[in-house]
């Protein structure tokens, strides 16, 4: 699924990486625990999280993830958005909660990364 489709399904706003919405993502990890994400990294996957600090972006970059969806309308600060922009990482912010975000993407074929 293209990141643009994820944006539309989750009624999300693009915070960074506007030019990268054609990226294909077929796997996702949902967690607020960055060590859990790093314990089983999935390059190219989507990270769904409520954690907005700069470590969310650093974690996604280290694990070669494609994009982050911040749930419950949580927004990272300007420095965090800037780091993502500089490093070509897509950031989306959705008003939906984590459960609904995961459910919608799962129903549209995105698989959970294990």
């Amino acid at each position, binding site marked *: 699924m293209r990141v643009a489709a994820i944006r539309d399904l989750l009624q999300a706003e693009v915070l960074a990486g506007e030019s990268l919405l054609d990226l294909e993502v077929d796997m996702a990890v949902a967690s607020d625990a960055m060590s859990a994400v790093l314990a089983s990294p999935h390059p190219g996957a989507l990270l769904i999280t409520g*954690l907005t600090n700069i470590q969310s972006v650093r974690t996604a970059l280290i*694990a070669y993830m494609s994009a982050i969806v911040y749930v419950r309308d949580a927004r990272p600060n300007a420095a965090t958005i800037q780091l993502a922009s500089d490093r070509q990482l897509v950031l989306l912010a959705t008003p939906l909660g984590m459960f609904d975000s995961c459910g919608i993407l799962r129903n549209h074929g995105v698989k959970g990364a294990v």
Partner: protein
Amino acid sequence: MSEELLRRTFEVRGRDFESAGETSTDVTSVLKDIGVDPDIILRVGVVTFEAEMNVVMYADRATLSFVLSDDEITIEVTDQGPGIPDLELAMQPGYSTATDEMRERGFGYGLGLPNIKKNSDAFALESEVGKGTRVYSSIRLNVDG
């Protein structure tokens, strides 16, 4: 005998959550620039990031040394901090002494040291209570070797 190609030393400040992760970003950028295998960079990234977060959460300061040789990458972090009373317990996945504040920042779930070990070909952990902790990780560059 391995030949040392590159050595970098970084200072990591305890309790500085905003900067936490900068060193791992710097280290992985260097490795990307010189064309190291992405799987290796991922492992180095996890080791350095987790080690940095441990320093930021628990210690006062630390020195992180990164050495690239022709056959391995070694990362050594020596901190000045409280030390770890029970190393076996600290290595148990899920065991943590982190505060709620640390967990709100996405770390402190008892996975840091196990993640470092899992991504290392050689791993060592030494600690002295009241003085500090040393973490050593080596990652081989030639997976067939």
